[in-house]
């Protein structure tokens, strides 16, 4: 009887390990990655909105760049310059150019090492509307996109 119970537990453990490694397990991880990427992307748009509110002008990209730019340069109401960009690790960063504020600061960390950022783009459209697009991708395997998100901001008059 003890052998039977032991074998049953062993079978349950093996089946659980198999479930984790199987396609359905990978799908679950994919779903979790999607949820965390969507959360990170929403935080990025939140920060972007917050910094645009206190900016007087967007210096880069300009309307003459229809294909967009991988970073955004803002001029604050106090005249300071701030660059918003993504690091190679996929973290959303800000770098100030005022005196005593030159070191980059991380605003949103990449969800995890399995996830990277693909093609973050800022566009300045006619009418003073800043558009933003970003995709989070798998860092391993086929590098498929996990989440794609966009946002728009009408700049102050």
């Amino acid at each position, binding site marked *: 009887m003890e052998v039977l119970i032991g074998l049953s537990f062993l079978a349950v453990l093996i089946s659980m390990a198999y479930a984790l490694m199987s396609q359905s397990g990978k799908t679950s991880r994919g779903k979790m990655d999607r949820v965390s990427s969507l959360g990170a992307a929403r935080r990025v748009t939140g920060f972007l909105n917050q910094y645009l509110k206190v900016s007087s002008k967007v210096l880069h990209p300009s309307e003459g760049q229809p294909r967009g730019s991988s970073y955004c340069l803002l001029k604050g109401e106090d005249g300071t310059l701030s660059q918003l960009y993504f690091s190679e690790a996929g973290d959303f960063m800000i770098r100030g150019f005022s005196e005593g504020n030159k070191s980059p600061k991380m605003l949103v960390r990449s969800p995890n090492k399995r996830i990277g950022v693909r093609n973050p783009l800022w566009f300045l*459209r006619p*009418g003073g*509307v800043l558009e933003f697009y970003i*995709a989070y991708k798998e860092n391993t395997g086929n590098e498929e996109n*996990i*989440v794609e998100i*966009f946002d728009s901001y*009408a700049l102050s*008059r």
Partner: protein
Amino acid sequence: MMEIVVVTSILLVCAIPMVHLLTRTGRLQERSSRSTYAHLIARRVFETALGLSRQGLQAIPTHDGFLCAVDNKERGTSPYFQSFGPSLSGVSSAEFPLLVKALSHYRFRFVLKPVTGQETNLSLRNAVLEIHWDPVEGKGPRKMVLQTILSSVPII
């Protein structure tokens, strides 16, 4: 033997709510995702309209019919999504494969109505956006109506 049967039965009974919980979580996540994209559509429409309002309210495109955010020959594509991304050619599956899939659930209309009590004031309009989307497995929210005041002169 009896003990094993009892333990197995208890385990099975306990597993039922776990399975239900896991499947429900997936549905809730999908509903949350639908709501997120509905808000992103709303932000794109309102922010673009706000930007264009500087050129006068007549410069703001409106459509009384429900149009889609992605290419749709049957319903038509909203002007707010006809120039999207670096190629300015709309949300295409070649450039934005996931966005095409995510936005295909939505259709919306955008109209400018007179502001109550200010009907004769042509520089002031109530912008109304109504977004409909396919609910997840036939359940959950399926529409959202948002409105804001737009003016051709800055409102302090």
